[in-house]
């Protein structure tokens, strides 16, 4: 599912450099998934910023700084030599089982967003097990007025939703539904 998403994104046309600008309206996505494992077990799997192997789209993770603020990671997607995403950690709280990071470098052909920030959180469920919440805030890939359809707000939301859904589906598969 995840791979299909990146393949779809990969066919987008190349555009002029647009690193600092952004479109007029920031978008947001929040997805959650309930799993049977307790929060500590889930956090053990996803709480290390330097290891995103729990996500099926991620081929490799390498970075520096561990889980300290300003730690960085370089994700390779799909396969060796695949598309990449560079990210930086800006909040990390192991006690609250949450971390926040930003994308510092990604092509809009890979993920059609700009100014992307995200939070990943594990919470206990009252009925037992855990809830994983993944939230993102971002602008569309095309920073100016009248975007082409593959770089508009809807495309940005669809792409991020696809990434989150694939990751959360993998966690449900791994830890079981509650």
């Amino acid at each position: 599912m995840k791979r299909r998403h990146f393949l779809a994104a990969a066919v987008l046309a190349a555009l002029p450099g647009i690193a600092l600008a952004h479109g007029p309206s920031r978008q947001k996505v929040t997805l959650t998934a309930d799993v049977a494992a307790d929060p500590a077990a889930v956090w053990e799997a996803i709480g290390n910023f330097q290891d995103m192997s729990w996500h099926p789209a991620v081929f490799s993770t390498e970075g520096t700084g561990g889980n300290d603020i300003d730690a960085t990671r370089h994700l390779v997607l799909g396969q060796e030599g695949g598309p990449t995403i560079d990210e930086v950690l800006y909040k990390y709280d192991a006690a609250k089982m949450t971390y926040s990071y930003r994308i510092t470098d990604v092509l809009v052909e890979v993920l059609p967003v700009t100014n992307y920030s995200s939070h990943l959180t594990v919470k206990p469920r009252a009925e037992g097990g855990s809830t994983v919440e993944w939230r993102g805030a971002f602008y569309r890939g095309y920073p100016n007025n009248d975007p082409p359809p593959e770089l508009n707000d809807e495309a940005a939301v669809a792409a991020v939703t696809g990434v989150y859904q694939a990751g959360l589906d993998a966690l449900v598969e791994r830890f079981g539904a509650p």
Partner: protein
Amino acid sequence: MRWLNASARHSVLALILAALPAQAERAYITCQNGNALSLFDLDTGQETARWSLPGQPAGIAVGTDAVFTVAPEGKVVRRHTPITGEITAEAHLDGGPTGIALDERRGRVFVSDWYNALVWVLDAADLSVLRILETGAAPAGLAVSDDGRLIASADRDVNQVSLFDAETLALIARISVGIRPYGLRFAPDGRLFVGNVGTNDLSVIDPETAHVIATVPVGERPYGVTFAKGRAFVTNQYANTLSVIDLATLTPVATIETNEYPEGIDTTADGRVIFTNWFDNTVQVLDPDTLEITDSYDTADGPRAFGRFIADH
């Protein structure tokens, strides 16, 4: 009054209060993702109206007898009746209308054009375009000084503030600030405070000399600034905090945890600090003396309220 029982005393009090003019403080909250304009009564905490407003509204300027909104995706500026929300004028501005400020003395509205490095000067009555002012690239926040003499724009992509004479509309100065200035506001003492999202600080400008006189660190991604009780309050989008700065010493005095993605911020006439949280759809109320958050209200999706959003009359 000794002969009055408690309930009678309350009735008398109610009669006295009813005879006074309404003093309710109102907040107009643009909800960008929800395409809505919400009206909050800040005395009761009630959302008394929620008007549908297409075009992803964010910018806001509240005057005595009109409220102005900017919907950048719809490329439209609207004038509303304060109580009913009815749209009484509308201007379609081809470009990227973003920030807005009201010069009530002269009946002018200023709207920045993010894409074309200019500010539209509009007639506040009918929103016709009176003039065009040139700014640097990507003008965002706009502010009118309390004494009505100056207009300022934060020109984000060239790291400067443009300062204009509000009467003649002539350019006074271009002032270099921190990296990527976005929101700005004049303090009650006349100094101009500019939030820089690239350097996570405030540039404090003396408009008389047109120079930066201090740079004050704040949190990650400062968005808006307001003033109350001798302090500046800054929303930090990424940090989920407010920075509190002493206006006499220009030093940070506190950092307050907020809900997620704090953005638009303004002050009521009685000194309460009100701000929106874009991600989790709330408005929060801060007591500027105790620095405690006293209330939190739910809004439509994506409250931003970029500008002056409180009416106190």
